[in-house]
C-alpha cells in the first residue's frame, strides 16, 4: 500500500496476473462493468472510439496498464500524467443532462475496482483461486495504482473486507443497462472485427480474436457477477457457464483454438461424448468463429497483395468518411473524431505534455479548416453528404502543417528521418507489431508527409495510415 517504499517494485502480483492469457477476458469483462456506470457510459457514447475501434481501444488499455505497472517509476509517472491529461479532455453532458468528466473520482475508482474484481474472477473461473492473502496483496496494488493517478485512495474502501460490500452495492445500485454495455457485448464481441494481417504469426492474440465473436460474448456474459446480470437483465445462455469455465481453464480461448488448427484430434478429445449437446455447442461456436475468421482474413489479404508501383484508385468519399474520419461512428465528423486520432497518435508515441499539445493543436487546426470548408449548413458537424460534395477540392495548409507536426513527433531521435522502428511505433496495427509495408530505408520528411497527404486529402490507399485510423 502507500507505505511500500517507492523504490521497491509495487506491482509484482498485478504484473504476473496481467501477463496471463486469460487476462484479456478479464479486461473485456471489466469493460462491460465499466460501461454500465452511467457517467462512463455517457463519456463512451460521446467521446470514445470504443464502439468503432474496439480492438485498438482494448490494445491501448492493456498497453497503458502495462506502462502503469512498469518497474521504472519514471515510466509509470509519465503514463499517469498522460492518462490524466487524456481524462481531463473528456468532458461533456450525458443524455440525461448530467455532466460527466474523465476525472470523475467515482468513475475512476470504479475502473480500478472492476479491473481488480475481474482479475480475481479470472483466477476463480480458471480454477486457480487466489487465496485471501493474495487477494489482499492484489487489492493493495490496485489501490496503489489509483493513488499513482493522483486520486484520493480513500474512495475505495481501505480494507479488502469492506471492498466486497462496496462492490455489491455498486453492482446492485449504481450500474445500469446502458447502450455502452450493449456496444461492448454486441459490437465488440458479437462481430469479429477484421483482424490485422495474421498470415505470418499465429499468435495467441490472433487466436483469441479469431473466435472472439461467438465464444467471447457468451463467455463474458457468463462470467459477469450474477447480481449485475439480474440488475441489467442480461440473459445467460444455456451452457455458457460450462463454456466460460472452459475458456478460462484453458488459459483463454487461444489454448483451445491453437491446438485445433494444428491437431484436430485434440479438439475431438476435448469434449468427447456421443452426441453430447454441450460439445456440439462448443464445436458450433468454434465453427462459426473459424468461418468468420477466414472471411476476415480473406478480406484483409487483397490489401497486402496490391501491386507496388501502381497508383491505386482512391477510396470513395463515402467510404473514407465512414472508415477514416468518423472515428466515433456517429455518422458525422466533428472535433471528437479528430481528437480521437490525436489521442491515438499521442498514446502510440507516448508523447510528453508539450508535444501532445502540439499534436492536438495541429489536429484542431485541421478540424477548423475542414469545418470552414465543408460544414455548409453551419451545424458544427460535417455530414457525410457535405464531405462527399466538397472533398475533392479541400484547402490544405492546416493539413500540411499537421503532417509536419506528425513527422516531428514521430522522429523521436531528431535525426531528420524516420527509422523503421519509429515508423512502426506510430503505424503498427492493434495487437500486431508487423507492418506489411515497413519502409526498408529511413523515411525523409517529404516522403512521409506526401504519403500522409495522399491518404488524408487524396484518399489514396495507404496500408500504414489505414492501420492507424481504421483497423482493429
Amino acid at each position, binding site marked *: 500500500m502507500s507505505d511500500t517504499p517507492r523504490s521497491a517494485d509495487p506491482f509484482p502480483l498485478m504484473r504476473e496476473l496481467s501477463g496471463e492469457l486469460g487476462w484479456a477476458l478479464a479486461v473485456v469483462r471489466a469493460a462491460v462493468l465499466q460501461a454500465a456506470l452511467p457517467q462512463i457510459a455517457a463519456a463512451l457514447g460521446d467521446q470514445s472510439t470504443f464502439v468503432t475501434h474496439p480492438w485498438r481501444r482494448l490494445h491501448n488499455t492493456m498497453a497503458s496498464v502495462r506502462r502503469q505497472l512498469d518497474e521504472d517509476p519514471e515510466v509509470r509517472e509519465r503514463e499517469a500524467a498522460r492518462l490524466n491529461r487524456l481524462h481531463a479532455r473528456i468532458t461533456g453532458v450525458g443524455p440525461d443532462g448530467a455532466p460527466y468528466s474523465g476525472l470523475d473520482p467515482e468513475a475512476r475508482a470504479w475502473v480500478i475496482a472492476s479491473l481488480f474484481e475481474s482479475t480475481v474472477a479470472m483466477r476463480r473461473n480458471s480454477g486457480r483461486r487466489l487465496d485471501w492473502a493474495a487477494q489482499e496483496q492484489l487489492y493493495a496494488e490496485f489501490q496503489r495504482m489509483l493513488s499513482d493517478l493522483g486520486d484520493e485512495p480513500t474512495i475505495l474502501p481501505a480494507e479488502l473486507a469492506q471492498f466486497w460490500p462496496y462492490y455489491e452495492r455498486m453492482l446492485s445500485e449504481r450500474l445500469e443497462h446502458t447502450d455502452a454495455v450493449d456496444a461492448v457485448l454486441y459490437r465488440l464481441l458479437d462481430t469479429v472485427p477484421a483482424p490485422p494481417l495474421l498470415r505470418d504469426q499465429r499468435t495467441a492474440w490472433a487466436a483469441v480474436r479469431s473466435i472472439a465473436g461467438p465464444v467471447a460474448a457468451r463467455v463474458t456474459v457468463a462470467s459477469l457477477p450474477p447480481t449485475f446480470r439480474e440488475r441489467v437483465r442480461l440473459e445467460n445462455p444455456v451452457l455458457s457457464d460450462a463454456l466460460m469455465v472452459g475458456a478460462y481453464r484453458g488459459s483463454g480461448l487461444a489454448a483451445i483454438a491453437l491446438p485445433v488448427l494444428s491437431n484436430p484430434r485434440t479438439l475431438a478429445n476435448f469434449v468427447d461424448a456421443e452426441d453430447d449437446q454441450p460439445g*456440439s455447442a462448443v464445436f*458450433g461456436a468454434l465453427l462459426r468463429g473459424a*468461418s468468420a475468421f*477466414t472471411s476476415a482474413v480473406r478480406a484483409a489479404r487483397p490489401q497486402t497483395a496490391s501491386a507496388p508501383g501502381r497508383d491505386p484508385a482512391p477510396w470513395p468519399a463515402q467510404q473514407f468518411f465512414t472508415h477514416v474520419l468518423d472515428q466515433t461512428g456517429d455518422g458525422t465528423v466533428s472535433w471528437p473524431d479528430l481528437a480521437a486520432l490525436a489521442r491515438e497518435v499521442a498514446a502510440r508515441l507516448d508523447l510528453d505534455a508539450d508535444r501532445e499539445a502540439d499534436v492536438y493543436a495541429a489536429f484542431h487546426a485541421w478540424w477548423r479548416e475542414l469545418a470552414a470548408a465543408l460544414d455548409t449548413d453551419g451545424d458544427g458537424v460535417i455530414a457525410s453528404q457535405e464531405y462527399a460534395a466538397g472533398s475533392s477540392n479541400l484547402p490544405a495548409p492546416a493539413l500540411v502543417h499537421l503532417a509536419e507536426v506528425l513527422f516531428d513527433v514521430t522522429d523521436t531521435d531528431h535525426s531528420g528521418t524516420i527509422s523503421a522502428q519509429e515508423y512502426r511505433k506510430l503505424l503498427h496495427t492493434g495487437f500486431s507489431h508487423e507492418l506489411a509495408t515497413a519502409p526498408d530505408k529511413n523515411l525523409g520528411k517529404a516522403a512521409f508527409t506526401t504519403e500522409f497527404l495522399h491518404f488524408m486529402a487524396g484518399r489514396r490507399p495507404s496500408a500504414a495510415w489505414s492501420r492507424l485510423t481504421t483497423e482493429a
Partner: protein
Amino acid sequence: MDGNRRWAERKGLPDNAGHRAGRAAALDVIDAARSVGVRWLTLFAFSSENWQRPGDEVEFLMRLVQHVVRRHALALHAKDIRCRFLGAADPRIPTALRRDIADLENLTRDNRGMTLTAAFGHGGRGDLVEAARSLIRSGVPADAVTEELFAAHLPLPDTPDVDLVIRTSGEHRISNFMLWQVAYAEWVFPPELWPDFGAGPFLQSLDAYSRRRRRFGARPQTTANVPTGANLV
C-alpha cells in the same frame, strides 16, 4: 449410403444406431479418399425422396448431420478439404443446420486438396429442372443452348463428370442421383451395407475401377486413372 437401416435391423438395433454407424463409415471413406488422392468425392447422404421418411427419423438425421458438420469442420479444414452441399437450400432443413453448413462451406472454400460434396436433399431431376429454369431466366435463345451451356446452369456447375459410382448394399438403381453428371460413369455394386463399407471396400472399388478401360461412347479410348474423378458412394 444405402443400408443403414437394414444393417441395424440385422443386428437387432434401432434404426438410429444404423445411421450412427453409417456416419463412422462416411468419415472413414472420406479419410481413405483423401489419402489416396481422390480429388472429388460426393456422398449421397440424403435424397429429396428421403424427406418422406418418418418425422423423427428425419429429425434424427438432421441432428446427426449437424453434429458431423460441427464436430468435424475443423478436421476437414485441416485436411485441406473443400466441403459443400448439394441441395442444402431446402427450407425444410433447420435454420441452425443451414447456418452451420454455410459456415462450413465458407470456412473451407479455398481448400484445394479434395472437394467433398454432400448430396443432401438432392434429386437429379430437381437439378435438371433447376438448370432449365435458370436457362430460361437468363434469356438464352433456344438454338444457343448446348450441353456445355446447360451444364453451366446446374447447381455446383464446376463439378466434373462423375467417373465412378459406388452403389453399396447390392442395389442396382440410379435413384435419381446426379442424372446429368453420371452420363459416362462406371458403376460398381459392392455387396456391403453402408455401415460395413469402410476404407477397405472403398479401396477395392477403386481398384476394380482402375482395371476397366473406359470408352466414353464415341470418344477416344482412355484408360481410367484411379484418383481423378467424382466418386459416388
